[in-house]
């Protein structure tokens, strides 16, 4: 399956012809973000007034004064207008009309300048950078909302925000974080690096990949639109019947989250097919970099779990607009239905947020210990094991909800079993450190911090998976601290490590090392100082999402709030470092600064438009450090006959089979 023919035809992204018309229009005449915004505004107005016209005579609309139908239709047409304006459908229409496709690579890919980053492109490297910038912006927005939450919690008596605003902040923070975290590593690093790591010139479905990114700005802006619509007051979990009852902001929540689900399916599906079908000759499953394994597992979970989310959100929207009753008990629906749908997505999602982080640390550790990855197969098995088991644990979120009690021991067992494959990752990390030559560069510091944080996060996970102990911990700050340890302490630390490690590859620019160390130490200490006390706060009886709490807990809460400001400052240091290095100083770093063996490091930085001049032939695994006899990782200029021969033998095998 991993065999490809010579480049030029099949590996040409988008299927355009090299002789196709070259787009020579000025930037503002071509579809890009500004035409997208125009399309979105027109779309929203069209949809909104269409909805007003349709629902003009509904009594429920006039009494409640909430135009949910108009708002949801407005959002729907907004997304369509946004995509049309961006030109997402242009190639499709051209193809249907039988007109020649433009040479997308010449016109979109290697067109220099920043304009290409504001357009729909077929170059996975451009999409990767788009994702990177987008995710950093979303992350900072959601982080600022968290500062708002902590500011309110400075005092249990005096309030900065009204209780309504406070719950809006909580919901916006949670939903935005959960939406972006699914793609924070898969989006930028997955899209950018997977083809480079597996020796491919392209991804399988470049248009799907571009679409997956361009849905995210729409999703995030619609989510933020909940604030002017009155906010939503049911947190990121959006449990009915509260979410059916809530003001129009809840439409924005359900629509945005469902839309992000679609983006996740598209992103995951593209990467899944790319990894399976576009590996270079010699890139066996046993030579696949661990990062690719991690992203592969993530993609499987995303492709299978996210449709449930989109479906659930769609049902919620119909409940809110056309008054179906999927989730209303006394009309024959069930609130449990939503809880099951939500967590059937929600728990795989938690591991969607863990695997990419594991992948990154497993990628970083061998480079900075100068040793092969310890127990490669165990690491891969850990990734696959987590991905599979993640679909069988969701009801542990419902231990106290009144579901069938017989289910509890079963879900306790599956939940606790997931620590076995997670333990594999620790075994691999610890084995790789054994008798190593550790270099404490910034990416390595972040990778090591992940083990520290994830250990605390994982062990606290065992506490909440035990049904007895969970009676006290469920829905308290203990759970909140637990998943911040795994998501922020795991995924975001890995993301930061990935940024410091791969930015020289992706942008040809090295981030400032000294500022990076400051960033790391400040972030590591402030993170632990913020979230470690929250375990105690939860154990002492403070539920999540409250703005009033016991007076005796004010000391701990104030400590946490102040630490969270320091944590916010450390993220600001990263943003300053990032912006300063990429926009102002631009220290060029074109080689292989970490002396890494990974295939992605064997091409210049940043990689040329076609990634590889020829499809490489992979000769050995990516982690063969310390082995003087190991062959180079790949032959970048394989003799012509190699590929043809490989292809011929593959065909013979096929005909024999």
């Amino acid at each position, binding site marked *: 399956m991993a065999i490809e023919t010579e480049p030029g035809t099949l590996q040409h992204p988008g299927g355009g012809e090299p002789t196709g018309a070259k787009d020579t229009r000025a930037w503002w005449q071509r579809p890009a973000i500004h035409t997208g915004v125009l399309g979105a505004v027109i779309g929203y107005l069209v949809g909104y007034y269409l909805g007003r016209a349709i629902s003009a005579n509904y*009594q*429920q*609309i*006039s*009494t*409640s*004064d*909430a135009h949910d139908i108009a708002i949801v239709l407005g959002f729907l047409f907004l997304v369509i207008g946004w995509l049309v304006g961006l030109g997402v459908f242009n190639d499709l229409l051209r193809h249907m009309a039988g007109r020649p496709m433009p040479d997308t690579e010449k016109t979109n890919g290697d067109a220099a300048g*920043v304009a290409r980053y504001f357009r729909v492109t077929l170059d996975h490297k451009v999409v990767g950078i788009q994702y990177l910038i987008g995710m950093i912006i979303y992350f900072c927005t959601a982080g*600022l909302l968290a500062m*708002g939450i902590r500011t309110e919690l400075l005092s249990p*008596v*005096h*309030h*900065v*925000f*009204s*209780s*309504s*605003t406070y719950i*809006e*902040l909580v919901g916006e923070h949670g939903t935005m974080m959960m939406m972006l975290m699914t793609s924070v590593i898969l989006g930028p690093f997955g899209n950018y690096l997977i083809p480079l790591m597996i020796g491919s010139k392209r991804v399988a479905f470049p248009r799907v990949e571009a679409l997956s990114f361009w849905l995210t700005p729409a999703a995030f802006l619609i989510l933020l639109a909940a*604030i*002017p619509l*009155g906010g939503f*007051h049911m947190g990121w979990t959006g449990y009915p*019947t509260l979410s*059916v*009852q*809530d*003001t129009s902001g809840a439409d924005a929540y359900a629509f945005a989250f469902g839309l992000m689900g679609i983006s996740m399916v598209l992103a995951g599906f593209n990467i899944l097919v790319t990894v399976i079908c576009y590996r270079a000759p010699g890139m066996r499953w046993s030579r696949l970099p661990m990062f690719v394994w991690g992203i592969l597992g993530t993609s499987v979970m995303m492709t299978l779990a996210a449709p449930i989310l989109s479906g659930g959100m769609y049902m919620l929207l119909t409940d809110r607009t056309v008054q179906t009753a999927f989730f*209303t008990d006394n009309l024959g629906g069930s609130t449990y239905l939503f809880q099951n749908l939500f967590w059937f997505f929600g728990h795989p999602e938690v591991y969607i947020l863990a695997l990419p982080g594991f992948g990154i640390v497993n990628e970083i550790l061998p480079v900075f210990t100068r040793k092969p990855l310890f127990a490669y197969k165990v690491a891969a098995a850990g990734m696959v094991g987590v991905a599979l088991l993640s679909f069988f644990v969701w009801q542990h979120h419902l231990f106290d909800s009144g579901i069938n009690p017989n289910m509890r021991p079963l879900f306790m067992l599956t939940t606790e079993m997931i620590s076995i494959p997670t333990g594999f990752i620790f075994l691999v990390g610890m084995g790789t450190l054994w008798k190593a030559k550790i270099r404490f560069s910034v990416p390595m510091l972040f990778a090591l911090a992940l083990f520290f944080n994830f250990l605390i996060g994982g062990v606290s996970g065992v506490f909440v998976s035990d049904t007895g102990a969970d009676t006290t911990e469920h829905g308290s700050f203990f759970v909140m601290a637990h998943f911040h340890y795994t998501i922020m302490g795991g995924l975001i630390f890995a993301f930061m490590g990935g940024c410091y490690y791969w930015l020289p590859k992706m942008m040809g620019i090295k981030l400032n090392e000294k500022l990076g160390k400051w960033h790391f130490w400040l972030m590591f200490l402030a993170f632990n100082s913020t979230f470690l006390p929250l375990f105690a706060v939860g154990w002492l009886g403070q539920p999540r999402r409250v703005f009033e709490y016991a007076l005796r807990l004010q000391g701990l809460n104030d400590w946490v709030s102040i630490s969270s400001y320091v944590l916010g400052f450390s993220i600001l240091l990263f943003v300053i470092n990032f*912006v300063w290095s990429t*926009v*102002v100083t631009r220290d060029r770093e074109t080689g292989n600064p970490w002396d890494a063996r990974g295939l992605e490091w064997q091409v210049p930085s940043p990689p040329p438009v076609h990634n590889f001049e020829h499809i490489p032939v992979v000769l050995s695994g990516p982690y063969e450090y310390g082995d003087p006899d190991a062959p180079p990782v790949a032959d970048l200029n394989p003799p012509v006959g190699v590929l043809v021969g490989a292809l011929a033998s593959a065909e013979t095998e096929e005909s024999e089979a």
Partner: protein
Amino acid sequence: MSLPARLGTLLAAFLVVVGGAIFVVIHYLLGGPPTVDYAAGVTPDSGHVVKVYLQEDPQTTIGNRPDWVSYFIQDPKTHKWVHTTLFQVPAGSTIDVTILGYDGCTPLRNPYWGKVTGTTGNVEYVNGKATPVLNSWGQCSVGHTFSIPGIGLNVPVASPTTLAANNSLCSTSPCTSGPHTTVTFSFKSPTTAGSYFWQCRVPCGLGYLDGFGGPMQTIGYMTGQMEVVS
């Protein structure tokens, strides 16, 4: 792009982002209805009596949307009705409350809240008549409630009882005429300063599931805060 151009773009983008964030915070996150101050110029002592006037209005077509059922509070200085549900009282005082009930009746979701609790003598005075319990299911009797759970106060606000009155409710808020009841009661404000939320317990969010959306969950309509200052 040249370095000055890059720096200029960066600065412009930075200013736009900061400006946008400040606008959102001030306009959407910190905004809200005003607070009517009944504590100004009062030196709290145990014998002090504060007179608070509220009215609850039916769903009318007032200028500002949404046109939900709503409480109004009278400003003690100007005697104007303010569209808010936030008011401030001194700690440890006797609060005499008068509520003008202009809205029609609706059954309580839980009839238990038809019992008056937390007031002096555990009664309210409906048009001057002492009343300990209102039956909202059996009679057309309760328009809304005024409940402060933090101090155990629960007062069902009586509504006009006749069919004719319920079909000719006042149509412009704040109401000045039309069928209504006058409910009075008094309670002691807490001795410790802080915010105490109050709410209505009648499912009057018309068109919302359980009748508990819209006005019931929007500060300035059917729920608000009593700020106790010492």
